[in-house]
């Protein structure tokens, strides 16, 4: 069997962080979204993985144990990508969405379920509690047969998990229909869709806030520390696990890293800085001295000057924060995007919100970013600015 992975194009909702780049280019815990999907599929014994990409893909994903081929998407949207990829395969195919953060076991379980349940099409269904906008809700009967699908399906807490196995001709026909509802209606009409319910780690990345949730989910799974022998950690630094510290990372004197956290390749954590739980600092990030970072994702090559304070935020690729930049993180009640307002966070009363800073932006010294502030890619914020928060929907 072959797999088709939809690496996706540009998503407007992610443009505030990525600009013109496709969303599967974003890094989480050391890997692009697209690389993680390929990694998850690599050990299923597939003949080939075909990645359908738009022109913005920076480097084709590769894997030592399976052949990966990239084809370029022609028509727009999910349908365009799916139809393009499915044209490359015959017989049964595993179709996976590139913007899903999940575990290997989800894809393995789908494969086993498809083999044992004997339905035309098998797809992943995930129980989720928050009322997020999603590709499609699913209504299942007690045997796990999908009886209805679409955004407006009531009385259901299952959503489509972004992976399915079925006959390539049936799938191609289904994806010829507009919208998710059309696709699923066609599949249901063509003789039976069964759901494999996945209850493990699962995040659908549609907005930058989903990245925070996914990062917390991924790092929350860390049980022990993995520290590269090639990382340089000062004897005066304090590492409280679990953390991943990659090659050539440098933790300077007096810095404290408190897990769960990810410190990427070549990252510098400056003297006396405090890197707190759920920090994800990707390759070549610099955290200057005496800074504090918590529950934030910092994309590759970003620079946080000395004395910066960054929490509950997403810092884009090659962003530069001059010294003393502060993100505030206590939102005005009711202004948290519904996507970040998980039941758990709501009941705990810990809904917090920082800033989203788009790639290649430069923030002047002593600027203050209010909760929910969004700074477009390539912006220049003057020193001492006060940026108001306009939390995204």
């Amino acid at each position, binding site marked *: 069997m072959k797999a088709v992975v939809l690496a996706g194009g540009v998503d407007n909702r992610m443009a505030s962080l990525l600009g013109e780049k496709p969303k599967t280019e974003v890094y989480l815990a050391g890997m692009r979204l697209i690389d993680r999907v390929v990694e998850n599929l690599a050990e299923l014994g597939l003949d080939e993985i075909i990645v359908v990409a738009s022109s913005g893909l920076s480097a084709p994903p590769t894997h030592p144990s399976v052949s990966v081929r990239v084809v370029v998407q022609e028509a727009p949207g999910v349908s365009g990508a799916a139809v393009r990829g499915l044209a490359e395969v015959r017989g049964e195919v595993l179709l996976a969405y590139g913007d899903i953060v999940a575990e290997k076991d989800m894809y393995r*379980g789908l494969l*086993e*379920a498809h083999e*044992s349940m004997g339905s035309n099409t098998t797809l992943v269904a*995930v*129980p*989720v*509690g*928050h009322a997020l906008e999603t590709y499609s809700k699913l*209504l*299942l*009967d*007690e045997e796990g047969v999908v009886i209805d699908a679409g955004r407006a399906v009531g*009385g*259901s*807490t*299952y*959503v489509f998990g972004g992976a399915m196995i079925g006959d390539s001709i049936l799938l191609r026909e289904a994806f010829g229909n507009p919208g998710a509802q059309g696709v699923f209606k066609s599949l249901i009409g063509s003789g039976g869709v069964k759901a494999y319910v996945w*209850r493990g780690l699962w995040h659908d990345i549609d907005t930058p806030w989903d990245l925070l949730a996914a990062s917390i989910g991924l790092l929350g799974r860390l049980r022990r520390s993995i520290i590269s022998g090639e990382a340089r950690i000062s004897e005066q630094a304090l590492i409280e696990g679990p953390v991943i510290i990659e090659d050539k990372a440098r933790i300077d004197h007096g810095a404290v890293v408190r897990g769960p956290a990810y410190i990427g390749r070549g990252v510098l954590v400056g003297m006396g800085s405090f890197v707190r739980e759920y920090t994800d600092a990707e390759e070549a990030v610099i955290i200057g001295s005496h800074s504090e970072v918590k529950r934030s994702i910092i994309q590759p090559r970003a620079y946080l000057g000395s004395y910066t304070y960054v929490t509950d935020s997403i810092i884009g690729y090659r962003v530069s924060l001059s010294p003393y930049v502060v993100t505030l993180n206590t939102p005005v009640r009711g202004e948290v995007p519904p996507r970040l307002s*998980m*039941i*758990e966070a*709501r*009941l*705990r*009363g810990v809904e917090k919100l920082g800033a989203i800073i788009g790639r290649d932006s430069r923030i002047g010294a002593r600027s203050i970013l209010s909760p929910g502030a969004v700074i477009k890619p390539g912006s220049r914020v003057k020193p001492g600015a006060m940026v108001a928060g306009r939390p995204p929907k």
Partner: protein
Amino acid sequence: MCGIIGIAGPEGSDVVPMLVQGLKRLEYRGYDSVGIAVVSDGRIVVRKGAGKIEEVARVKGFPELHGSVGVGHTRWATHGRPSDENAHPHLDCKGRIAVVHNGIIRNYSELRERLESKGHVFVSETDTEVIAHLVEDELRGPESFMEAFRRALARLEGSFAVALLYAAEPRRIFFARMESPLVLGLSSNANYLASDIPAFLDYTDRVIVLRDGEMGWITSSQVYIEDWRSGRSVEASGRLRKIPWTAEMAAKSGYPHFMLKEIYEQPAALRNSFRGLAGDKSLLKAAEIMASADRIFVAAAGTSFHAGLFFDHVLGRLAGRIAYTLVSSEYHRLEGVVGRGDVLLAISQSGETIDTLKAARLALSRGARVVALSNVIDSAIPRESSIAIYTRAGPEIGVAATKTFLTQVLALTMLAARMGVASGHLDEGDAKNIYQALFKASSLVRKTITATEGVVRELADWLAGKHSAYMLSRGIGVPLSMEAALKVKEIAYIHAEAYPAGESKHGPIALVEKEFPVFILSEPGLEEELEGNAAEMKARGAKVIVVSGTGRPSRHLDLQIRVPGAEDFMTPYTHIPPMQLLAYYTAVKLGYDPDKPRNLAKTVTVE
């Protein structure tokens, strides 16, 4: 509870891997040590130790053992701590008799003293070892092993199911049953015995359930049963049953845990139970007996007790009667109370719960009639009762009762409706309407699971950080909230307490502080009162989560778990599944195994 398995395979076969597999199937009964014994070259070889099956099998070298006849045992300590010495099988002095045992030998200390004075050397602290030495002591001269075994059994007091190997009769496994469960499994080339059917369901589905006072032996091709008190052989072929559960049904079939699988099996279990009971003459007969009773008592333990309390509520509604429901370990209270003209309803999923069995026996001995409700056909309590009705939930492996609760509630509602008709409180049309509603219980559960699993899964992340919670309701919801609290306690190890909501301000509210979890199971017609209780809790900073079928938003709640709307006697099917899922996901979040809660056993056969 201890688990026994014995396999008599054909000459030249190797039953050791099957014994290990059978022991794994018995894991759900709870255990602290395991062991096996086989007859090999006319000698008995024992390997045993404290710990998990895989670990003991590896450390003690089970795979090096070979034999075509053998017994295995999972032990749950009662006499003597879990240790390698105390693990079963136990041997006599010469190592020619091996015994595995489930139950308690009450007169073991006097037997041990007597045997020790005769020179027998004991190596363990268990009551079981006494059996091996006792049989050895009785074994004299040329007479058969059965003679000695019979005499030994006559000296034992207590409850037991035993299986013995004897080196001089290497093809046979000897067995006896008194009060503790033991079943035989028959197949064309091998025979089996075990404490419970799943142990050998991989190999055969043809079963004979043994009765108290029965002993005998099996070989690979023969079965012999007799009643040791009368000495008469028993013709049991008429008792041979084909078990409709497949081994696949007893396995997890893709679910991460049995508990989740069994939660998902509830629609099917309810449908099967409804179909089975709708045309069941025993149900009508039981209803007539109960409707004509002077007084109605209910005895049950754990989850079955909550089903009993639920019955109490619907009985008032549907039949205008009141039942006295008591926890079955308190059966002494019936002494001097229950008598001729009364009926005791004994509810037990396994039909083997010792306290409930004792309550039933007491009622019978005082001239009352006993109606049994069980999920296991021909088990001890149904067998001893005047009449038995059965739920058809299939095997329940998870220690926490899930599908058996809802099927019990279904059966009891049907029983109450028939009692209503029998006593003239309802007419046939009313009963028909109730049956029609109950027919939909199955789809109601399915819709409820679909509508709540996602919400509950996230809610569990929050509850996992709490130490204590209240479950409040009114009316029929009270026993449901007790069941919800029990699930959270036994699976997630979080202290959860149920109260009638009106009672909560008489004390319990003192514990409520900021962020304290309060779950309210809303009941139709009682929403306003419950909202008042919610407001009291909320005013003290509690987080209030309401399970309700009405969409009316309230400012006194922090989260609504929205379930399909239903009449009050149907709310078990909408309110219980989310609470079962909540307990399940909270346990998983905390890293506990929901199928094997600590300190708990599935079938409690010890007082």
